[in-house]
Structures are given as C-alpha cells and as structure tokens.
C-alpha cells in the first residue's frame, strides 16, 4: 500500500500529478512496493478464476476415450455442438431470449426511472429506489419459485381469472414453457437495469430540456433529441448487465421452464453433471466468446465506477 511507505513525508509524486517523463515518475514506476496490495487478489483470481477458465478452454479441445479425458487435440466437441440440432437451436434460442429480455427490461426500466427521478420528491425517491434493490436480499431461488405460485394452474393469476368468471379451465400459457422463463428473467434482471439507468438519469441536467423547449422544440422532441442521446452509454451498460447473466442462466429455466424452456445454461450444467467435460467446456467457451465480443464492442459502457460508487 502506498500509504505504508517508510518515508515520513508523503512523496510529492504520490499526491500531485507528475510529469510522466520526469525522473520522479520513472523512479515511481520502478517502485514495486506500491503494487503489494494487489498480491492477495492476484493469487486468488489467478488460481481460482483465470486458471479454471483457461482449463475449460484447454479441455474443450481434448477428447474422451472410454470415459477418460485424453489430452489429444480435437475440434470434435465444437463440431458436435454446432451440428447437433438441439444444441445449436438451444444456443440460438438462448441468444434470442437474452436479446428480447434485455430489450424488454430496458424498455420497462427507462420510463420507470424517468418517473422516479422527475416526479418523485427527493426524500421519497431514495426510499423508493431502495425498494428496487430490496428483492436482492430475498432468496433468489424462492423469488423464482414464487412465480410458480403466481403463474401455475393453482396460481394467483388463474385463481383470479376463475373467480372473475373469465375462465373455467386454468390458463396454461405461461408456466413450464418459454414465456414463463421470459417473464422471470425480466423480473430477475430489472433491478440491474434500473440501477444503471437511475444513476445516469439522476445526474442529467434537466435545464437542458427546458432550453430545448425555449428554443421551440416540443417537450417530446426535446426528450428524444436531448435526453436519449445522453442516455446511450447508460443504456449500453444496463443492457450488458442484463444480457450477459441471461446467457448463463440455468436456475430460472429449470424451475419455471419445463422441457420447452431449456436454455444454454441448462445444457452446460447437465454436461458437467454428466461428466461430459469436453462437450461442456466447448459449450462454455462458445458462451464466453459471445460475451467477449460484446465486451469488446461495448467496452465504453463498462466503466462501472459510477454505479457502485453511489
């Protein structure tokens, strides 16, 4: 840690911006003690995060012979996944589902955050915003399972419809199929999107809208031409925070999805549970590749400093 240096005075270079070409800067760069604080994190991340992921990449090119892992190079695992009908369909479905759920979540969250920032008095606003995060403190599994009690045959919606005399038979549209998974995914990841959009809207200078209106734009037009472009980055960040976890989601499909709602996450989980390591590894690498491409494309939206700082 920089503050634990032996010098009594805080060196100037540590407190003031220094000319990068000066002697001080060169000496500073060579001082390894300032990086000591990274050591424990580097060890833990190195052994239990980087190494395991590399191992997955390696295994995805190995073969199994008589149920044993053999270190012989092959691309067969990838071929199996990309040529087997169920696998490739599931991969496509997962990406489509992630896209749809992300778009829906953003579309729902934006007007909500707009309302929170502009129409709710500041004191109440903080409380209401805390309420958005509150679901995080409830059992994730039971929040998913509660949807069975809402959407199921004897669920809240069907009981309500029956009591209103609208249906005699329970409506089986949602549960144990793809729509149910979709609803639960939007529900699960809404707070992530709201968190990002809220912090960005909260910092927006609303007098700009006023200026737009004063200059003759309609309120709607000033919203679209002034506010929306400034929200682009926040939208991207929020989108990434929703899209990526869905790619690996296996719990929600398992609980509410039935056989039709299976996503890539379930396939991967089953491969590993069935000791099909190379196949599971190859599927994992494919998912990781999609994520990597996204992260590189949208790296600007990744400055998470603002979100967790607040």
């Amino acid at each position: 840690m920089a503050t634990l240096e032996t010098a009594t005075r805080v060196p100037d270079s540590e407190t003031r911006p220094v000319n990068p070409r000066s002697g001080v800067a060169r000496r500073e760069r060579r001082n390894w003690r300032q990086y000591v604080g990274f050591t424990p994190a580097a060890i833990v991340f190195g052994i239990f995060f980087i190494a395991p992921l590399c191992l997955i990449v390696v295994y995805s090119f190995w073969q199994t012979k008589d149920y044993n892992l053999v270190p012989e190079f092959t691309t067969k695992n990838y071929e199996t996944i990309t040529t087997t009908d169920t696998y490739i369909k599931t991969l496509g479905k997962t990406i489509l589902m992630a896209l749809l759920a992300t778009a829906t979540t953003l579309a729902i969250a934006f007007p909500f955050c707009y309302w929170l920032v502009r129409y709710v008095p500041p004191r109440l606003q903080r409380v209401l915003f805390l309420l958005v995060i509150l679901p995080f403190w409830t059992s994730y599994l039971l929040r998913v399972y509660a949807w069975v009690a809402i959407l199921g045959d004897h669920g809240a919606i069907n009981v309500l419809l029956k009591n209103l005399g609208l249906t005699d038979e329970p409506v089986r549209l949602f549960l144990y199929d793809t729509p149910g998974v979709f609803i639960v995914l939007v529900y699960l990841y809404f707070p992530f999107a709201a968190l990002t959009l809220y912090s960005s809207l909260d910092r927006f200078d609303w007098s700009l809208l006023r200026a737009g209106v004063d200059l003759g734009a309609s309120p709607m037009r000033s919203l679209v031409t002034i506010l929306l472009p400034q929200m682009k980055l926040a939208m991207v960040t929020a989108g990434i925070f929703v899209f990526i976890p869905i790619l690996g989601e296996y719990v929600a499909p398992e609980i509410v999805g039935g056989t039709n709602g299976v996503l890539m996450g379930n396939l991967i989980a089953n491969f590993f549970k069935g000791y099909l390591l190379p196949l599971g590894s190859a599927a994992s690498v494919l998912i990781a590749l999609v994520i990597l491409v996204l992260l590189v494309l949208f790296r600007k939206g990744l400055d998470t400093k603002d979100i967790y700082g607040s």
Partner: protein
Amino acid sequence: MAHDMEVVNPRAGLFRVILTAYGLLIYLFLFAPIAVMILLSFNKSKVVGFPMTGFTLDWYSSLTQNMIIQDALGKSLAVGISVTVLATVIGTAAAFPLVRAHIKYRSAVRVFITLPIMIPGLLIGVAILVLSTNILHLQPSLPIAVIGQTVLATPFVILVVSSRLESLDRNFERAAADLGAGPVQRFSFVVLPLVYPGIVAAALMAFTLSLDEFVVTNFIIGSDQTLPIYIYSQLKFGITPEVNALASLMLLGTIALVVVTALGLRLIKMLTAKSRQEEKTGVPA
C-alpha cells in the same frame, strides 16, 4: 426544477398521472413474488399454492425443530463470515494500489477486476469444479465454496472501497505528514477513519451476497448444505410452506442487518462530530 415540464406542457398533468400509475405497477411486478412468498408461509395447506386454506404460524414454529435447516443456517453463517472476512481484506488491499499506484491502463485493470461479476456464475462454478477435481484433486467441499464465493464477492469490495478512496482528499494525508505523522499513523488515523464506511458497506455487500449465493456454490459445495442449497433440494421434491417461512425470516434478518449497520454508521458519525465539537469549544454539547 423537477417539475419544469409542467410549466411548458399543458398535458404534463396527465403525463404525470400515467407515469405514476406505471411506477406503481412496476412495484407490483417487483414485489408480487415476495408478497406471495410471505403470504404462503402463513398458509395452512401443506402445498405451496393458492387458494389459501387458512392462517397458521405452524410453519414458523416447526422451523425451530428442523435440525436440517438449523444445520444449513449454521453452515451458511460460517461460509458467509469467512467470505466476508476474506473478500473484505483482499478487496481493500487491492483497492489502494488500484486508486493510488501508477498504473498505465487503469481502466483496463478495472474492467479485468469486474470480470468475475460480468461472467455468468455458471461458467465460474463449472470452471472451479473442474480445476478442483481434475487438477488439485480436491472433492467439492465447504472450503472450496468459500473460495468460489470469495472470487465473486471481492470485485464488489474493490469497486466500493476504491470509489470511496477516490473521493478522499489527499491533502489530509499531506497535512498529517507535515505534522510529523508516519505512514502507519497516517493510515490508521487519517485514511482508515475516512474510508471505513466504504469498507463496512463492502463487507455487508459481501455477506449478503454469500448468504444467498446458489449458482456457483451449487457446483462446488459437495454434500454440505447451505440454506440456498437446502432450499433447492426442497424445490425438487416439492416444498412445504416451511421453506417460505424460512425465506421470510431471512429477508427480515437481512433488512435488520442493513438497517442496523446504516444506523450504526450514522451514530458513529454523529458521536465523532459531537466530540470534535466538544474539543473545539471545551464544553460538552
């Protein structure tokens, strides 16, 4: 400032009503599952579902007799505390160089640190499973689960503590140095008192994350059961409202923990402000 739209737009009143209704609808969406979960914990019927057949507190009282749940609670707390300590120490140690050391590609390092948050837990879970069984020859167990959760929690700690550290005015340290304070003194009497609310918040985040972690833990915990693992095993065989009662109590416990921590931080802030006031005036306020 917040309402200047209304001045210019005659329809803004209507707009406001619609948006408010919409906002409330969102809260219904967010809290319906939680309300259902709590409601069904009071249901007489053994089946978790509607319609409710009667009100009972039996499921809460039967919790006290369920040894499996109590064992799982104990393991959850043990794992939670271990993860909190590990992640807070490792994360805080890393936050300092992240903010203060000379790093050429600071934002790249920051993105790298957030990777365990960005990558789906599933991939982290299976990767750690494969590493521990195939390379380290360690069967999935409680300690492996602690390590896996630490990997997940540490990035949050780094982000929270480093953002607190960034807002710290380094003139305080310069002043302390000018007054003769050594590095250890500067750290313990200047930096730590200013940064600790961030560290406490980060520790709390790590603890609550650990308490509910399932996605990664599921793969690496082996035969031991923390509460989420127990709940999952029950989901497979059809749960009883007892699990709902358990989750309702956990929600209550978490809220209490967060409120107590927030109040505690505020109290300490008030007390230190008061004692400073006393030092200045020489009179107890």
